[in-house]
């Protein structure tokens, strides 16, 4: 059954957090470099909190240290129908949509996190001037 949810992407807030956010983002990376960067960070125990994909298919990330016991799923640059499939699957495993970026080409980049760790992740994002995504069902 298809979802009828409405998704409100994360917002990048102007103001005093902007400098920290810009400093914390990775550079824009090709798919190959991005995959290497994600693997490198995973081995340093860093995981994606937020990602964006540009219209020319470059990706940038904001990484953070996951709380003990947390689980995340990250999907970057996916069409809407695939994103909705991932969202349903994550909701079924008790993960909440944490952050969402939708680019000009309509490609979705999203991060889900285990529900019990959502508030911790939300605080991290807000410290970097990024709002959490909203789902209205």
């Amino acid at each position: 059954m298809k979802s009828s949810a409405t998704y409100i992407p994360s917002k990048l807030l102007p103001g005093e957090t902007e400098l920290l956010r810009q400093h914390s983002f990775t550079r824009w990376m090709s798919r190959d470099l991005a995959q290497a960067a994600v693997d490198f960070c995973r081995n340093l125990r860093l995981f994606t909190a937020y990602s964006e994909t540009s219209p020319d298919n470059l990706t940038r990330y904001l990484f953070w240290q996951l709380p003990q016991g947390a689980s995340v799923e990250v999907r970057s640059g996916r069409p809407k129908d695939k994103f909705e499939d991932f969202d349903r699957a994550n909701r079924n495993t008790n993960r909440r949509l944490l952050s969402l970026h939708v680019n000009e080409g309509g490609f979705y980049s999203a991060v889900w996190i285990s529900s019990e760790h959502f508030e911790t992740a939300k605080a991290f994002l807000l410290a970097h001037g990024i709002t959490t995504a909203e789902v209205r069902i």
Partner: protein
Amino acid sequence: MITTPILHIIFYLAVLFMPAGTTKFTISSGFESGMTWVHQTDGWHAATQAGRDSGIWTGSGLSVFVKKSSGTSETDMSRFLAVDTGADQVRQVSVGGRPVGISSTKSTITFSQETGGIFAKPVIITYSAD
């Protein structure tokens, strides 16, 4: 002139190919033999074979950060490193425009290059876990 940060490149590649559960790795042969990184909560603590502190190493994305008493430096690996993933999902790494040969065993990885590359003398990393 840009100096190639060989130790940073070794750290990046050693972490990129690190087996799960690794808590310590050492350059057991090649450039800076004996340099060891040990995982602690604030990063990877590096020390030379003689026991000299070489800072706390961390990273994010394509950057390597080294924190010393004099401050923290950031080195952007994208200036030196290229990665291609073939259709067969095999990852090919190049440093300085030259392909890096990568071979591994359960607890070691070897980086090598043709003459002229920074790994012309192969570098062997040995991983261990507590």
